[in-house]
């Protein structure tokens, strides 16, 4: 008798928890794969495609599916370190096949040479170039991610990648680098 009671009680409990779990699964349903979001948040979002994928999000998806984490030159060592911590994999040096880590740059159009072909506008992944057909184009400097993608399509080669200038407010306290003029 007691055996049957126990079975009934356990059965009822199983049913109740099953309903709760079932409800929770529907109620708290997660739409996308959160690991992709987390990886994407660590990538520099330059959308440069140097990793071989068309943007940071596709690369994040690829990493989630087992792609190497050392293919992002703009992110450099910091990104590799962060990714290795997130995913619990070994940090490797940057894969040289995809480019080297360099200083942050910004695109600048030599405006008097621009012929207004709109090719760079179409190439820019973050819509940071303003202009219209047969009118001069210009780069919105603070929106530019320095991805390089506009340089190659330009038929008159009027786009330069210049390093982001160091100003007093983004200076990194590199005191050793400052030539102090000694007053005699």
């Amino acid at each position, binding site marked *: 008798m007691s055996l049957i009671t126990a079975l009934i009680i356990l059965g009822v409990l199983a049913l109740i928890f099953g309903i709760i779990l079932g409800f929770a699964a529907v109620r708290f349903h997660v739409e996308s794969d959160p690991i992709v979001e987390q990886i*994407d948040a660590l*990538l*520099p*979002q*330059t*959308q440069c495609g140097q990793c071989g994928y068309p*943007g*940071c*999000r596709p690369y994040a998806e690829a990493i989630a599916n087992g792609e190497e984490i050392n293919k992002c030159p703009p992110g450099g060592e*910091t990104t590799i370190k962060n990714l290795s911590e997130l995913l619990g994999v070994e940090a490797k040096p940057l894969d040289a096949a995809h480019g080297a880590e360099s200083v942050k740059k910004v695109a600048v159009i030599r405006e008097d040479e621009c012929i207004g072909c709109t090719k760079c506008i179409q190439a820019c*992944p*973050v*819509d*940071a170039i303003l202009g219209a057909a047969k009118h001069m184009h210009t780069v919105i400097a*603070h*929106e530019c*991610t320095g991805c390089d993608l506009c340089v190659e399509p330009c038929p008159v080669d009027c786009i330069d990648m210049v390093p982001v200038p*160091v*100003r*007093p407010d*983004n*200076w*990194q*306290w*590199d*005191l050793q680098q*400052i*030539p*102090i*003029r*000694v*007053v*005699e």
Partner: protein
Amino acid sequence: MSIATKEIEAGRIWDFPGGIHPPEHKHRSNQTPIAQLSLAETFVIPIKQHTGAPGDIIVAVGDHVVGGQPLTDAGLNNGLPVHAPTSGTITAIGPGRIAHPSGLPDTVITLTADGRDEQVTMPPITDFHERGRSELLDRIKQAGIAGLGGAGFPTAQKFALQRPLDYLIINGVECEPYITADDRLMREHAQTIIDGIEILLHLAGCQKAMLAIEANKPEAIAQFESLLPHHPAISLRVVPVKYPSGGEKQLIQLVTGRQVPSRGLPLDVGLVVQNVGTAYAVARAVLAGEPLIQRVVTVTGDHVERPGNYWVRIGTPVAELLHQCGFNPGPQQRVIMGGPMMGFTLPDLTVPVVKITNCILVPSYAELPPPAAEMNCIRCGACADVCPAQLLPQQLQWLAKAKDYDGLEKQNLFDCIECGACAFVCPSEIPLVHYYRKAKAEVRQLAREKMKSEVARERFEARQIRLEREKQERLERHRRAAEARKKAQAEAVAKGADDPQDAIQAAIARAKARKAAQAAAAAAKQSDDESNV
């Protein structure tokens, strides 16, 4: 009234952890009254001399300006104006050396003085008790007043947030060695400072102010002791000599026993702190309509013949200031802006005196030797004993070297006030503060990059959505055009025109017939040939 408030009212002085007692060297510069410096020939006025965004330049090269005329206005960035220090002509606007340890250029306005020193002032407001907060705050902003104690935070902005305040604290501690600018100002202009405190009290909307002075300034204390009985809202607090008791958070702890929360503001504990120099500038701006175009600067050190305090126009090049004080530089002379603890070595002497410049120190080699070579940390813990913010300096140093930004965050790097007490006591001569400043700059840079990458992501995603939408629209347009064409044909057929479909069908039929005819002809030819064989 709570027990804590009773104790504050009774004038209790609390203590803060840590602190050091470096040699003071104050007697050198506080023996003579504040002297007026002669006008320089050219002035260099950086457009950003405060914490926040610069204002918009409202003068052009070639303009003639008079002293006190604004050169920038708040503009779109809500900056703080800077004013012409004297009358003259604007000769250049562009990048120039500024008073910053980096030695990097920023936008400066160069003014060539005409020697007439014409001045313009705003109308004085003597009945400030009758005036509204916004009018007074606007005046303080128009006068270009930023905290003169060192941080340069716009004064009007400090009072803009209307939060209930218990006390206004006026900082006359001036704990850093060598500097005596506030000391002399308090001795000579006590009444103006009190007027300024009354105005600030009116703005703060609180009943009581506490004026804190370090015990090593007996003359200043005596001045206020004789004057303050007429001002019951202001009470005097004499704080013991210890560095850095003049730090905002340390002073709050000394006179109220309250602790400003980590990464918080004095406002969070119902207090606001202003420097005595700021109180003086506020009084002049409101009661006399004078914008902030000059301040007291201590010039001191072994290599200056006439050490003392000087009224210096903002924008005066340091070279000119030193020249007038009898500067005889030694070999490899360092010139320090600020005090020996928190100041920085100037990259060259063309940089100007700005609103936050309280001291120019020209020490001899023996007086203030340049930093020796860094040795390894021996984990003695002396730094942790003296840290006024109760941080673990050696731990922060390891983390900063390892670039462990999460660890630095956990050890509350941003509560470091960069007072230099840890580096002062370090037996291994480790430039600890330098590591913290660098780490702070890196953390801020990472935060900026993070923000930028967020924006880039949003823009990238918006672009993807737009491209997809445009593609769909294009396909839709083609589909519609095709439909419209079909419909037009159908209508034309209905009206009796030739159905193009019929024509097509007819053409197909003709082609088929021709093919069949050819096939038949070929077959016939073949059968003919066969029969001929």
